[in-house]
Structures are given as C-alpha cells and as structure tokens.
C-alpha cells in the first residue's frame, strides 16, 4: 500500500519537476534542428539528389524517425505532450500555495517573522498613544504605499499592506497561454483545412482542393473572379502587386465583393482566400489593324496564338509568340505571313508601342498591333482555421503574462505597533517576490519617512 503510494508520488514528482521542464526544453530545441537541415516534405531520393548525401542514410532517417515530416512524427508530438503535461502538473502543484498567499495574507506576524525579512526597521516613538501612532502610520502607508488592513490583537496593532498581488499570477497566465496555443492548434488541425483553387477570370468555383488530398471540398457558396490584374516594377518582369476582383455568391446573389491582393485576403463564413499566384489561362487574343500596301485599305482582325487568320487576297498570318516587354520596347508579338499558295514567310516582330514600325519591313501587308488580351487565372490559397483566434488569445496572454511576471512584483509590508515602556514601539518589515534591489531602495526611503513622521511628535 505504502509502496504503491510511493510509486504514484514519484511519478507525480517526476511530472512536476522543473528538471524535466529544462530537459524537455533542451530536447525540443535540439531535435527541432533536424527538421531545419532535412527539408520537410521532400523524399529521401529528392534530398539525396539535391545534396549528394547518402541515400541509405536518408532512407534510414525517414523510416526510423520520420525525418522528412518530423514535426508531425509521434516522437516529436510526444515530446510536446510531455511538455504540456509537465506544465499542467507543475502548475497544479504550485498554484494552491500562490492562491493562498494572495487570498489569505498573513495579517498578524510575530518577531520571528520580522527576523526572516531582509527589510526591517524598528522605531520607538517616545511620546504618543497607541492609537495616535497607528493613525500616523496608517496615513503614511496610505500616502506612500497602499491602504493597510488593520488587526488589533492582544493589545498590539498589526498592519498589512500590499501592492501588485496579481503579478504572482503572471507565471500561471504565461504557462496556461502555452496550453491555450496548443488547444488552438489542435482545433485548427481537427476542424480546419488548407486548400487551393485556381479561378479563370470571369468564371466561378464552388469547390477547393485540399493540399495533399484528392477529393475536392465543396463550399456552401461560390466565388467568382471578375478581373485579375498584375502590375510590374517599371518595364521589368518583377511583379509589384497583383490583385483579383472576387465576388462571393450565395444562392445566385452577390453577397460580398472585394479586390484582394497579396497580404490582403478575403474572408467569408470563416473561410479565407489569399492571393498567392497567377498564370495565363488559354491563349492570348491579339488585335491588329492590317493595311494592304498596294491598295492602302485597312481592316481590323483578331487572332489567337497559333491560329492562321485569312487576309484579303488569299494570304494568311499567324502569331507564334508574344511578350509583355520586348527589351525596352514594350509589348511585342512574333508572327509570319503565308502566301496564298501556302508558302511560309519569314518570322518578324511587331511592336505595339510603334504602330508604323512594320511599314519598314516592306511586306505586302503592314501590321499594327492594337491590343493584346491575355486572360489569366488567379491562384488562391484557401484556409479555414477555427482555432486561430484561440491561438491569438494564447499569444496575447503570453505577452501580458510574461510582462507581469518579469516586470511587476508583489510587494508586502507588515507593521506591528505595541506599547514599549512609556512610548510606542513600531516594527516595519517588507518583502518583494521579485526585483529585491529596487524594493530595498524603496524601503529605505519609507523607513526614513517613518522615522521623520514619528520624530515630529
């Protein structure tokens, strides 16, 4: 019986111990390094090809410790679990004591207690009554510290005053915040998803594809992309900003409209759409004004890339390539003209910004590019994370709690006033649970004030 009890006790002590906390922290730090060296989500083969490391070793690491997805491996999650259990046990063990310190402070103390404090002062007021001195000291504490609780017992008067009692809970708030963040992460993992979807300009979707999954997820609304825009830095190909005009439709009704950009997503019903990529959808359409050199007649035609478009007189032309920036000359196409009997002409370049440029080529037809229309698809990341607010709550509590724990302290003062010979004896003692040097300085001024106040009489 008592052996059992000892075993349970020692298991409990193990989970409460701070040694375990420090070891777990160091183990978490140490093992986390593995996943920063081995690229997560790769296969051993890809990694071996990329780095030249031994494939056998990588395969072994993959099998034995799940090194390519280590942050979701059983052993890493267990380490996190151990960390959480340690935190919970430690808090359960210590909390009642702290609660008692704060809720049931020692209002009446004896000489032995004063001796245990590092900040003490004894003053004897030669004249004056017990009550008079009491009022003076109470006033002093009220003005310089905090209003004290007064207890009269056995002909002595005991005062107790405190400040910053709540800072004792800072540590517990910090520690619970870690658990709250864990809970938020679990909620997100269980009831949320990460997915993606591509929407071609002008069309709508009502399902998205989860990452790593095969079955699409059906939404209870649909999203249409009315327009996609990309802006570049100057004439370069470096995108400055890209954006999509999205419309949320429910039962055929437009319920929400927003232009989203990178770093400015759209949220609806707990599901958020992030601008993440883009690309061309289908072939571009090019508009030309064509002048027949012989007659001077002009016509307007449109062509898709690769399509042979007939010209008056039996010839035809086709666009084979295009770019938004041909050197510094802006948008351009590469094209050729086929003669009426089907002979392939030499390719040439037409520049949109220089409509008369093609006249210098000396061909039968003079082409001016009047427009280039490329429709795009917009690539969106889709995320649903019902736990994210729990995570933010945890983060807020962590910052608030650790500031409380680090920068505030619980300061307490005790005073005993008792008759001493013909006069009145006053004992003052104080303690702070943190930052003692600052409290010692404070206590020093308080001690002087007390002496001055009582000397006045």
């Amino acid at each position, binding site marked *: 019986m008592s052996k059992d009890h000892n075993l349970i006790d020692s298991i409990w002590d193990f989970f409460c111990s701070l040694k375990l906390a420090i070891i777990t922290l160091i183990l978490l730090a140490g093992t986390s390094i593995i*996943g920063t060296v081995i690229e997560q989500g790769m296969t051993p083969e890809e990694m071996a090809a990329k780095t030249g490391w031994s494939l056998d070793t990588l395969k072994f690491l993959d099998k034995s410790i799940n090194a390519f997805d280590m942050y979701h491996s059983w052993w890493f999650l267990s380490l996190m679990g151990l960390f959480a259990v340690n935190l919970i046990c430690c808090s359960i063990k210590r909390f009642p004591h702290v609660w008692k310190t704060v809720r049931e402070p020692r209002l009446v103390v004896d000489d032995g207690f004063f001796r245990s404090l590092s900040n003490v002062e004894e003053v004897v007021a030669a004249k004056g009554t017990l009550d008079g001195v009491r009022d003076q000291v109470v006033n002093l504490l009220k003005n310089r510290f905090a209003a004290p609780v007064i207890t009269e017992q056995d002909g002595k008067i005991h005062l107790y005053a405190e400040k910053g009692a709540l800072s004792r809970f800072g540590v517990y708030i910090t520690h619970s915040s870690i658990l709250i963040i864990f809970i938020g992460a679990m909620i997100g993992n269980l009831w949320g998803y990460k997915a993606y979807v591509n929407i071609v300009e002008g069309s709508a979707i009502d399902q998205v594809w989860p990452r790593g999954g095969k079955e699409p997820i059906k939404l209870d609304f649909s999203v249409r992309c009315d327009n996609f825009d990309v802006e570049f830095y100057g004439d370069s190909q470096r995108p400055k900003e890209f954006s999509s005009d999205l419309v949320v439709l429910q039962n055929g009704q437009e319920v929400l409209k927003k232009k989203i950009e990178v770093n400015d997503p759209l949220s609806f019903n707990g599901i*958020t759409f992030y601008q993440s990529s883009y690309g061309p959808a289908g072939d571009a359409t090019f508009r030309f004004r064509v002048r027949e050199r012989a007659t001077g007649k002009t016509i307007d035609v449109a062509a898709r890339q690769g399509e042979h478009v007939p010209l008056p007189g039996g010839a035809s032309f086709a666009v084979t390539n295009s770019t938004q920036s041909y050197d510094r000359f802006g948008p351009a196409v590469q094209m050729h003209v086929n003669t009426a009997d089907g002979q392939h002409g030499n390719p040439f370049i037409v520049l949109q910004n220089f409509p008369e440029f093609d006249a210098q080529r000396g061909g039968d037809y003079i082409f001016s590019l009047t427009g280039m229309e490329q429709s795009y698809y917009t690539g969106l990341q889709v995320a649903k994370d019902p736990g*994210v607010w729990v995570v933010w709550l945890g983060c807020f509590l962590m910052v608030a709690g650790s500031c409380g724990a680090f920068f505030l302290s619980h300061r307490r003062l005790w005073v005993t006033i008792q008759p001493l010979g013909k006069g009145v004896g006053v004992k003052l003692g104080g303690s702070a649970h943190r930052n003692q040097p600052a409290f010692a300085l404070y206590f020093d001024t308080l001690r002087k004030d007390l002496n001055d106040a009582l000397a006045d009489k």
Partner: protein
Amino acid sequence: MTSSLLFNITTAAYFIAMVVFIVYLASKSEQVGFGATIISWIGFIANTGAIGLRWREAYAMGYQQAPLSNLYESVVFFAWSILLIYLVFDLKYKYRAIGAFVMPFAFGGMIWAQWTLDATIAPLVPALQSNWLTYHVITCFIGYAAFAVACGVSIMYLIKVGKEEAASGNPVGGILGMFPSVKVLDDLNYKAIMVGFPMLTLGIITGAAWANYAWGTYWSWDPKETWSLIVWFIYAAFLHARFTRGWVGRRAAWLSIFGFAATIFCYLGVNLVLSGLHSYGGG
C-alpha cells in the same frame, strides 16, 4: 548628405568608440570613458539618420517600404538595435566598461555590411509588402540586440570570475578592476535577457500573425521559424534554470553565450547555410 555617407560615419564612430573604450579600460581615465560614450552616441545618431535617409531615398524611388527589406538593411538595423539597448543600459546602470564588449558586435555588423553586402535599394516582392514586416523585424531585432548585450556581459563575467577566484577573494586590479563586479555582471546578463525574451516572443508572434495574414498559416515549421523557436526554448531554459534551480554565475554566462550563438545562427546561418522561405537569402 546621403545615407551611404552617414553609414560610413556610423561605422567609423563605432570603430573609434570601440578603441576608446579599450583605452579607457587600460588608462582608467574617466574622461576617456566619457569620450567613448559620446562617440557611441554620435555613431548611434548617425546610424539613426542613415536609416531615416535610406527610407526617404527608397520613397523617392517609388518604393513604399521601410528600410528593413534585405540583408544589408537588416544588419545595419541590428547594429542600431545593439546601440539602442546598450545606451539604455548605460543610462540606467552606468557601467561604462561594458561598451568595450558590446561595441565590437555593432562594429562587426557595420563593417561586414559595408564591405560585403549589396547595398542597392531593391523593391520588395508583394509577399513582403506589409506593415507586419516592420513590426516583426523591429521586435525580433530588439530581442537579438538584448541577447548580444547579454552575451558581451557574460564574456566579461567569465573573464573576470576566473581571475577573481585565482586571487581568492581579493579585489582584482588592472583592467579587470574596471569591470563591474561579477555579481553585477551576472545580474545584467539576466536583466538583458529579461528584455530580450519578451521581445523575441513578440517577434515570433508578429511573424506568425503576418504569415497568417499573408498565407493563412501562422506556423509552417520552415527553418527560420523553427530556429527562432529553438532560440526561444534556449532562453526559456535559461530563465527556468535561473529562477528555480539557481543557475547563476558561470553556467548562466555560458548558457547566455550559447543562446547568442544560436541567435546568430537563426539570423544568418539559416539564410546562408540552410534554405528557407525568407527573403534575406544568399546575402
């Protein structure tokens, strides 16, 4: 006045301050020490002005971005943060000798940035155009800077404590006599980490908030994120070992130096050695 001229002045001032601090330790002249502090302030003001001017220069080029957009800018900001924390500690605690062990970090950063890093102002890719980037970088770097000060103080501690023990309790003279007492050094180490740790916590949180806002995932275990968590774990272990197991003095000093080494790896090693999602890659 251009930002690059001011950056040169900054580098020079940090170098001179570093040398004058060492002269101060050797000469024990308070005037020399005061001079070193003044030169540090001049360097700090030049550094501030240079970062401000560079901000304006980027705006003039049409880039609406804070000057925290590439490795060069982050390193000069790191030097600025180190000076900020050092000068605040100097105003508050007035232990001048610490400058000799903190200025080398700031000077090292500046000279490395000036000599080898690409200082051209380049526009940000869309993913990085966010105010969160600014909050994130500022909080992280104040944290890193506090850890740098803690590391400098810890080195002083280790140098002094050995000599003091050899002298078996007698006060040590010479240059070491100019150092604050080992008790003070140990306490300053802890105080600096107490500033750095909440800042790093905020840095990690603002990073997560930003990632969530930009991509919908607040944590993706990419190498940079993971390393910042590793650093956080190390300093959390430091604090717990100190509070509850009484790890002070030598062991605390070594842990602080070790923590700063991990910080530097998190800041530079991840980009230069490991690859990641982050932007400062490749130098």
